[in-house]
């Protein structure tokens, strides 16, 4: 199916609601039949006020290299979660560096990888500031001997942008569940989130929930100083509540 030219997909993640349960990360693996060791989506442990931007690049205290451990020194402790998958950047570095245009951006803002064109040079992995890309290093190892999730090849504009059977030697990443959003179904991580911390919708529609949250709730982007202009927004845990 071709991308809709009028839509501009975006996602908002409310860090005040996120409980760090990894359901979205595991759900992502399930819907995409992701092999062992593949994480398109991961949940970082952080602290309020240190969620995005320069401070998030500070090296974590060695005592807190484990997940779910509050950051800081007692009594000034803080705990918040930062789910990170592809940010679907407006000015995506991965799209700019791909020598063959295998990584490309659809008109609706979804950044995708063409499994049939990628030559496996991994330049996009070097270019991505968020470390979200996954390479098929070897034959995929699955935890079960049957395919789970969507389970079929999916073509967009004639390009193979999802396949449950991973070709060795190509790069892959979060697709915003392209096969679902083209069918007007929410991405799977949004659907499975038990607390409704993920909101997905059309940023070009001013009445949509995502557009209103981005406009009116102090939404931030991840590593905003790099100018990549992600289409994933975070509502910081320490923000003023807009009641």
């Amino acid at each position, binding site marked *: 199916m071709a991308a809709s030219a009028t839509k501009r997909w975006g996602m908002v993640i409310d860090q005040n609601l996120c409980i760090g349960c990894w359901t979205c990360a595991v759900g992502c693996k399930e819907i995409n039949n992701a092999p062992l*060791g593949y994480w398109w989506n991961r949940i970082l442990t952080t602290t309020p006020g240190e969620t995005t931007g320069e401070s998030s690049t*500070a090296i974590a205290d060695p005592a807190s290299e484990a997940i779910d*451990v509050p950051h800081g020194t007692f009594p000034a402790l803080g705990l918040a979660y930062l789910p990170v998958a592809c940010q679907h950047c407006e000015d995506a570095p991965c799209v700019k560096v791909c020598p*063959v245009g295998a990584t490309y951006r659809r008109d609706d803002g979804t950044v995708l990888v063409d499994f049939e064109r*990628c030559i496996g040079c991994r330049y996009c992995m070097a270019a991505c500031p968020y470390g979200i890309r996954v390479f098929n290093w070897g034959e995929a190892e699955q935890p079960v001997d049957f395919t789970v999730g969507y389970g079929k090849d999916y073509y967009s504009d004639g390009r193979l942008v999802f396949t449950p059977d991973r070709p060795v030697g190509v790069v892959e990443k979060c697709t915003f569940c392209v096969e679902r959003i083209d069918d007007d179904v929410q991405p799977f991580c949004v659907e499975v989130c038990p607390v409704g911390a993920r909101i997905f919708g059309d940023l070009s529609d001013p009445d949509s929930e995502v557009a209103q949250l981005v406009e009116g709730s102090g939404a931030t982007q991840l590593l905003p100083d790099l100018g990549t202009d992600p289409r994933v927004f975070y509502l910081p845990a320490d923000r003023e509540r807009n009641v």
Partner: protein
Amino acid sequence: MSTRVESPAARPAPLGRTGRIWLGAFGLLIVLGLGAWIYQLTQGLIVTGMRDVVSWGLYIFTFAFFVGLSAGGLIMASGAEVFGVKSLRPLSRIGVLTAAACVAVAAITIIPDLGKAQRIWELVRYPQWSSPLIWDIIIITAYFVFAVVDLAVMTRRTTDPSKRARTLRVLAYIGLPTAVLLHSITAWIFGLQIARPWWNTSLLAPLFVTSAILSGTALITLVLLAARRFDRLDVAAETWRALCGLMAAAIAIDLFLVGSQYITILWGNVPRERAALDLVLPGGSWQWLFWAEWVVGGLVPFVLLVVPRWRTRPVLIGIASLLVLVGVYAFRIELVVGGMVKPLLQLPPGNAIGTYTPGETSFQFDGAYHPTWVEYAIVAGLMAFLALLITLGYRWLRSIDTSEVEE
């Protein structure tokens, strides 16, 4: 005048026992490297030490290193013409020969790094002009073609030597900017990336040009030393002096540029930049790179090359050249490692590596990288292939009737 380099007995001696062992060893390494590559093709890049955090490794270090070696030779050959450095002019043909060989092998080095090498033709079918990689492929091709043309002009039989000299001069004026461009574009593959603060410095292109002149000169010095030892090639004292001076100056500029970057990062103290620098500074987990670059490949060869009593001794010049190559290779490793070991997001549980080993985590804060035997074997094969090309190319150059070829 070039007869200073070409010994009067034009033709090279037939391959002796040493020569056969020499070429045989290269042949063996090439076969082993090819075997390792075929094995890698059947398994995927999982047989390498690279993973999602450090996703570029030995192949990319070596690619950048070979590119550096290539431009050195041509910058020297063309620079000798353009700037009229007479003592370097006799080295033109060897310079251009090594340039052609190195850039060809550099291009080949990219192939084992590709996850889907069989799709390499897509670079031609769907070139994406915003990618520095496409521009690098174009400049590598242009550079190779240029070197071959240059070499053909130099070795062609001619009845009009003055016309040849004019052509060579014109070619030199094209060659010098081409070489500078080759290095700069290769540097920009890394230097334009905002995701890697360690790479994202405008110093990178000048650094690549300098280290290329440095390593290229060291390679040519080693080739000349080998020719002197095995082919009784007579090299003038002033040529050695010029080579030593060029290397010493390049070491100084190289370390100056690297040092400027260190100072900028240390003083600024921006966490994401400090994280990368601290890896390679003394006390960091990759500190051996610092010592390899600054002492083994920097200070020591610099002293050997500037002390008048030492820089006339071929053995010491040879050692200095080898150390220079070690230092430049360390700089390539430092570049890739410093850029990739510390990803920007340093929050628990870290960054996913993309593979799963029972009992081990699939996440890393500091990317780990330990090259495997497959990578070493393939790189050794490529180095042997380069040495083989240079050896055979040298013999071919020597087999040409120099009395007619030279001015």
